[in-house]
């Protein structure tokens, strides 16, 4: 059945195409395994031990003080010895140095003894937390000391208390990374809670009960019991298994995003595999034709080549696995700053297995088409010297359709999210279709043109050479470049809008949690004209009678409906608001409670005029009707509210006041010091600083994305190499003939450079066009920021692409350029 010597010969001949094929397999394997292993490492070292991540078995969360019923229930369980409990308060507050000279927004965590039940808070002194965090002591992150120029032993004013810095915290189990935080951590003992006087009615505090259940088998039962007595919509009872975590959500989302990029790379590597196999089999055309002429069946021939490709695929897979592990060790450097320092990167057998299957699967899919074409090869090929185009019949298109469908199914399986999977597939589909269409159009218009310059004309002839994978190269390069270009352009635009030049008119300081009773004094003290927004917190219970499914909402990527919303009330539109639907913000003469919804929320959740939204405002149900949809006309740093109510509806509800003002940058810290000295409970957020933090994370993320997208560029480069190799004979022939006819080396180099230059330029230009359009759309419609096209950067990107493609083209043509005419001619004549 297997013809061993035949197979061996196929493996050893046309070595270069087999190398390209193997490299494409390696590329897809590396991408899959490195990323999968890495996400597994992240999960294991940060997220897998959910009990440590939550520091307890059961977590009860509320934005308000716990209800007496719940308090009692917890208390009685403690008394029965079934659980241990510790309360935790998490809030932002501005702390001040002695004499209120300097101030800093910090993330306060007030903890009762017992916290954390799992994992440990590591201190610089290596002492245990409970020994250090006694009454009157605080433990701070190094950043607090650095920024306030303090050291251990100094005091700090927190709220209305003056406390001593006793130690520095290095790591806390329930916050493995802290880049989401607006300020550094400060631990305070619950014994100082009263003295701080920060936890007041309406202020923004996360109240937590951490419970440790003595008998692990009881966790779910006790959680259910507590859930029964908890105030619905307000007190969330979760076990460590069901509790969401912001960090987990972030990494889930980010790893998911990287998954998309991996699949994108897999797709492009797949195109590479296909073009290498096509070239490989084309080189075997004569052999196959001779075999057919002497009576070999299609089955037999296909089987031999399947064995050949399997062996090569196996080699690529093994190499890819090895390289994946190797690369994986470098990933933590790429991710530096985003992950805790101590992250373990381990070899995951599962990742290898999964990568292996996906890789083999991809190879099978992408080789099927070229293999299928072998069937159509007629023995008559032996007598034909020149190329003829491949006829494409119905079976061909059916096979193509099959390949697309199978690959789409694979994507859906890998992403496990049908909606986003479909978006992704259509996105990639549109991208590739656009790239194909544009390149096709340009190539067609070039083909029709009469060109005077000889080298240029030759270069274009080269592009249309039979077997040249010109279109495949352009499409893959364009697709991967579009992604990289877009990320770069967006990165630059965000940077230009917020980092380089913080918008002139945008507010740069937020004051949160002003009590209504403080409003007058606060306004006087601040001394500048400002808009004060009342903030009432509430949840959505149902939309048009459809209750919000809390469990499902927390699983959702992006925003979720089960979270707490900030509601406000006023009877007028703001300066930066406009009505999209509805004649006025509210209507007169309408029964019931009216609400105005922001367009972004309405679009994301399919809310229309007249829809009924039922709210729960701190225990009070409120059924509303949507009477207008607003949009914002300014940049996204302006404060905004999804829901606006009429004043009369919410005026009496428990509320705080929020304001956003523009302060001269140099005075920010002085004003902050002054305001928090008088109003210790008010949180001050310096947006310019926040934006820097945001920008740093963003830069990191875009860097990582670019890193992984580079893999897809490699796929494009491999296709280019394979294409040059596939046309090696014709290229050598031409080069030799040109030399004989008296062409200098400079002429031949010029033609080659032009040919690859056109290829690179076309890909880069199309990619730039697509990415400019894409980034413009995202900037204008999603970020709401002014768009800069960054012509210099665009030029740079085009030139880098040009340089890359020309260099790759030249390097893969070295053997062609070196060919001695006499030797080639002799070989040709002997034929």
């Amino acid at each position: 059945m297997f013809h061993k010597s035949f197979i061996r010969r196929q493996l050893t001949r046309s070595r270069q195409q087999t190398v390209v094929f193997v490299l494409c397999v390696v590329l897809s394997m590396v991408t899959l395994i490195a990323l999968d292993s890495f996400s597994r490492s992240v999960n294991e070292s940060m997220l897998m031990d959910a009990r440590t991540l939550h520091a307890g078995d059961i977590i009860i969360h509320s934005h308000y003080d716990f209800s007496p019923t719940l308090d009692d229930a917890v208390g009685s369980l403690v008394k029965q010895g079934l659980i241990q409990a510790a309360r935790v308060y998490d809030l932002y507050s501005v702390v001040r140095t002695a004499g209120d000279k300097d101030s800093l927004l910090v993330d306060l965590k007030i903890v009762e003894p017992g916290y954390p039940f799992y994992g440990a808070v590591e201190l610089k002194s290596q002492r245990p937390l409970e020994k250090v965090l006694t009454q009157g002591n605080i433990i701070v992150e190094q950043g607090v000391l650095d920024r306030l120029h303090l050291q251990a032993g100094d005091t700090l004013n927190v709220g209305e208390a003056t406390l001593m810095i006793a130690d520095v915290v290095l790591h806390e189990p329930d916050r493995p990374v802290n880049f989401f935080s607006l300020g550094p951590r400060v631990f305070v003992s619950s014994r100082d809670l009263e003295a701080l006087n920060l936890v007041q009615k309406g202020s923004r505090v996360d109240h937590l009960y951490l419970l440790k259940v003595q008998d692990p088998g009881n966790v779910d039962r006790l959680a259910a019991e507590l859930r029964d007595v908890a105030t619905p919509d307000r007190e969330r009872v979760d076990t460590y298994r069901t509790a969401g975590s912001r960090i987990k959500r972030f990494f889930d989302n980010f790893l998911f995003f990287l998954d998309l990029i991996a699949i994108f790379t897999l797709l492009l590597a797949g195109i590479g595999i296909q073009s290498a196999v096509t070239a490989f089999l084309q080189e075997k055309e004569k052999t196959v034709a001779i075999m057919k002429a002497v009576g070999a069946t299609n089955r037999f021939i296909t089987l031999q080549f399947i064995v050949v490709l399997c062996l090569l695929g196996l080699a690529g897979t093994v190499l890819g696995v090895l390289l994946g592990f190797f690369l994986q060790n470098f990933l933590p450097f790429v991710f530096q700053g985003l992950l805790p320092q101590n992250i373990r990167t381990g070899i995951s057998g599962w990742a290898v297995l999964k990568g292996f299957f996906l890789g083999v699967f991809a190879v099978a899919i992408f080789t099927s088409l070229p293999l299928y074409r072998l069937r159509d090869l007629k023995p008559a090929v032996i007598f034909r010297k020149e190329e003829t185009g491949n006829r494409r019949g119905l079976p061909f298109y059916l096979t193509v359709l099959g390949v697309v469908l199978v690959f789409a199914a694979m994507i859906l399986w890998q992403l496990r999210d049908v909606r986003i999977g479909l978006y992704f597939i259509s996105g990639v589909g549109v991208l590739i279709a656009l790239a194909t269409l544009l390149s096709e159009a340009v190539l067609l218009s070039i083909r029709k043109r009469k060109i005077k310059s000889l080298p240029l004309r030759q270069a274009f002839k080269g592009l249309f050479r039979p077997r040249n994978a010109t279109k495949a190269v352009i499409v893959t390069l364009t697709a991967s470049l579009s992604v990289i270009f877009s990320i770069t352009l967006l990165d630059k635009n965000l940077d230009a809008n917020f980092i380089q030049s913080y918008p002139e008119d945008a507010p740069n300081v937020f004051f949160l949690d002003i009590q209504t009773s403080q409003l007058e004094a606060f306004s006087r003290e601040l001394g500048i004209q400002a808009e004060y927004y009342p903030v009432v917190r509430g949840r959505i219970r149902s939309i048009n009678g459809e209750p919000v499914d809390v469990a499902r909402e927390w699983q959702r990527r992006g925003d979720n409906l089960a979270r707490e919303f900030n509601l406000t009330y006023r009877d007028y539109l703001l300066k930066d608001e406009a009505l999209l639907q509805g004649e006025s913000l509210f209507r007169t003469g309408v029964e019931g409670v009216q609400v105005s919804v922001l367009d972004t929320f309405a679009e994301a959740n399919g809310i229309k005029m007249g829809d009924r939204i039922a709210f729960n405002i701190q225990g009070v149900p409120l059924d509303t009707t949507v009477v207008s949809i607003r949009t914002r006309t300014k940049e996204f740093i302006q404060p905004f509210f999804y829901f606006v109510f009429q004043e009369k509806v919410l005026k009496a509800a428990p509320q705080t006041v929020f304001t956003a003002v523009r302060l001269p940058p140099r005075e920010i810290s002085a004003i902050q010091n002054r305001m928090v000295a008088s109003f210790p409970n008010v949180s001050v957020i310096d947006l310019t600083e926040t934006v820097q933090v945001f920008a740093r994370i963003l830069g990191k993320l875009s860097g990582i994305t670019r890193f992984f997208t580079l893999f897809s560029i490699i796929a494009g480069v491999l296709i280019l190499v394979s294409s040059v190799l596939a046309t090696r004979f014709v290229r050598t022939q031409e080069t030799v003939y040109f030399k004989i006819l008296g062409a200098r080396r400079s002429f031949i180099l010029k033609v080659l450079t032009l040919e690859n230059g056109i290829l690179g330029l076309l890909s880069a230009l199309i990619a730039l066009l697509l990415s400019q359009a894409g980034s413009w759309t995202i900037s204008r419609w999603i970020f709401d920021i002014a768009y800069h096209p960054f012509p210099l950067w665009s030029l740079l990107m085009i030139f880098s692409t040009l340089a890359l493609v020309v260099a790759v083209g030249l390097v893969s043509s070295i053997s062609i350029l070196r060919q001695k005419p006499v030797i080639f001619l002799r070989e040709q004549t002997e034929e």
Partner: protein
Amino acid sequence: MTILEAQQLTKTYRLGDREICVLDGVSVAVAEGEFLVIQGSSGSGKTTLLTLLSGLDKPTSGRILLEGIDITDFKEEELAPLRNTSIGFVFQSFHLVPSLTAIENVMFPAELRHDHDAEEKANILLRRVGLLDRAGNFPHQLSGGERQRVAICRALINNPKIVFADEPTGNLDSSNGKAILDLLLELQKERRATLILVTHSQEIARTSDRIIFLKDGRIAAHGLGSHQGGRDGFSEQHHVS
């Protein structure tokens, strides 16, 4: 006047640890406008001699002078323009550029030297060989004889001083071959080019000015073609031993 002169050319190839001497001290001088035929059995070194004379390859020793200038040590960059303007080639297996049409093939050498009349000249030549209506065809759309006629046009477009033709009829049937050789000779006469032709045809050899007979890498005999009024065949007195 001598246009091309070879002095004591030798060419050896290394095959493993064996040295093969293909040409062994060949000297020959070709006069301007001369029609020289090189003959010899297969493997006697005819093609090798042609590649050395035309500067496509370097001799192991000996010198080559083109119009009195020693081009033996010319670099490829210096030889290329010489090949372009002073030399034309016609090969046994045509060697047309497959991606170029007939007229583009013919024009190519002229275009390389930025000749603005390339197209016009190519048209004149193609009309002359009766292929004007096939100008837009690609080589694979032409028969062997037609391809060779295109190759001849290409060899002549820059009005080279010397045309090298290595068994130009080797891949053609006899009637086609005869027509091609007649055409080549006619054109050579018209343009007063020097023609160095490798052929097995005795009939053609008889019409030449001179015949060189190669054997074992040496010139075994000189002969005069009937054209010069000499006897048929080789004159023993010219025999070099």
